[in-house]
């Protein structure tokens, strides 16, 4: 038998799958539009793609009356990045310390479990009261969301690190610092990278939700304003814009993740 002349079934062909995916999206948008025009979905509540897509375009047009969209995007992304970075650093430091110091880990375990059991979004009002309606409260919410993901990932990775690797580098002459930087932290980074997309998504969600609850700028604020005027088109425009931005963020992170995991066997990526 010769290789390469087999017929690949349609379901395994890349272009066919792509076309199918696009078809599903177009059908969904078309159905929304059609049902809206037919009066089945009341546009007052559910808007229509042909209404909110032009609205998004209008926001980006120079001199828009709805305020500077780039400012809103910038504010939301700044909050996301800050929440993500600070949350990751804190999670890494605390997770590492707890994994290395048994007593410390045991002492704080119940408290951390308690905090982790709180649905973090209910903390948003607390943070807004404490830190005001500006940047800080949004970052704080993002930090509490990201922290626990990174904390648990780091804690497990450092605690469960393969003892053979540690023994081996010690015999090769590693000092305590070398063990940390050559074995423990790379093991932790690997776990953090694996949870990178989840935690970045949480930081983004935290920023938007906190903006929605109380702020004077950002994409969440834009949705809240539209809602206050019963402007469902503005609400959906904001939601779609947020979804697109989240997708963009996710694909950037996917790229970064791929670059930093070349050393991993494929099935573990």
């Amino acid at each position: 038998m010769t290789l390469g002349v087999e017929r690949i079934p349609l379901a395994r062909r890349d272009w066919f799958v792509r076309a199918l995916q696009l078809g599903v999206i177009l059908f969904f948008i078309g159905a929304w539009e059609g049902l809206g025009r037919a009066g089945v979905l009341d546009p007052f509540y559910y808007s229509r793609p042909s209404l909110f897509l032009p609205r998004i375009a209008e926001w980006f047009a120079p001199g828009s009356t709805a305020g500077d969209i780039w400012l809103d995007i910038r504010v939301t992304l700044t909050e996301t990045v800050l929440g993500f970075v600070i949350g990751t650093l804190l999670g890494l430091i605390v997770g590492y310390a707890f994994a290395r110091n048994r007593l410390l880990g045991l002492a704080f375990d119940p408290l951390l479990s308690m905090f982790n059991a709180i649905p973090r979004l209910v903390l948003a009002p607390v943070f807004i009261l404490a830190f005001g309606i500006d940047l800080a409260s949004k970052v704080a919410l993002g930090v509490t969301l990201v922290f626990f993901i990174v904390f648990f990932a780091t804690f497990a990775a450092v605690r469960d690190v393969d003892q053979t690797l540690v023994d081996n580098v010690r015999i090769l002459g590693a000092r305590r610092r070398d063990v940390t930087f050559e074995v423990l932290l790379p093991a932790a980074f690997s776990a953090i990278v694996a949870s990178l997309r989840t935690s970045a998504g949480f930081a983004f969600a935290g920023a938007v939700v906190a903006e929605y609850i109380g702020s004077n700028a950002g994409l969440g604020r834009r949705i809240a304003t539209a809602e206050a005027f019963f402007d469902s088109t503005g609400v959906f425009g904001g939601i779609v814009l947020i979804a697109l931005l989240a997708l963009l963020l996710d694909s950037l992170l996917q790229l970064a993740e791929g670059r930093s995991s070349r050393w991993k066997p494929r099935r573990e990526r």
Partner: protein
Amino acid sequence: MPPSITLRGVSKVYRPPKKPPYLAIDGVDLDVDQGRFVSVVGPSGCGKSTILALVAGLITATSGTITIRDDPVRAVRTDVGFLFQRDALLPWRTVRENVSLALRFRGLGHREIADRVDPWLARVGLAPFADNFPHELSGGMRKRAQLAQSLVVDPSVLLMDEPFSALDVQTRNLMENELLELWGASGKTVLFITHDLEEAIALSDELVVMTAGPGRIKARYPVPLPRPRNVSEVRFAPGFVSLYERAWSDLRDEVLRSYERSLRSAS
């Protein structure tokens, strides 16, 4: 020749949390002379790996003294090479970076490291794979990388803990021959742990048989086979079979005892 490794009355008690403590090895006396290849065989759970970890200073003895070249073992010894049964290469480092580790920890410069690492990569046949990651290599290649990683600082003592037991038979024979070749004229002392009697005889100058746990030394046999040896042919040499039979009659009872004990503890 002065002894390179000595163990005097060495015992080790493990105290696992929430389990009764148990005696892993009991009163082990052992001298390994400089430049000799000595293998320790015993049933699983007889504490033979414990001996190696004690010599390397990875764990501390409950009683007794251990010295390497007259220097008592008090902490992790960095003047020995240690080959683990499991993969010990850092998965996030390339082959070259892994082989360079010991030199980097000793603070050598880039130029100097390359000068010493490159010949070793060539010697174990990994030069074309220097920039690959461990998961991209076969099991035998990973073992070669580990050999190079340990030998790059030229330790006078090599401790090997069932290093080839995870390899298939053909690869294992290749690796055993390569090990003998590398060791050949090096004058290094090798303490080799295995549960495979054939492997132990084929490689060593001397054979040490352990009892089922707690491990004690049951018998010692010199291996009077000529060198250089080819491990896949030495099995047919006169003297191999008779030594195998004598050592196996010692080992068999211990293996059975160890097996019965594992059945009891499982039920």
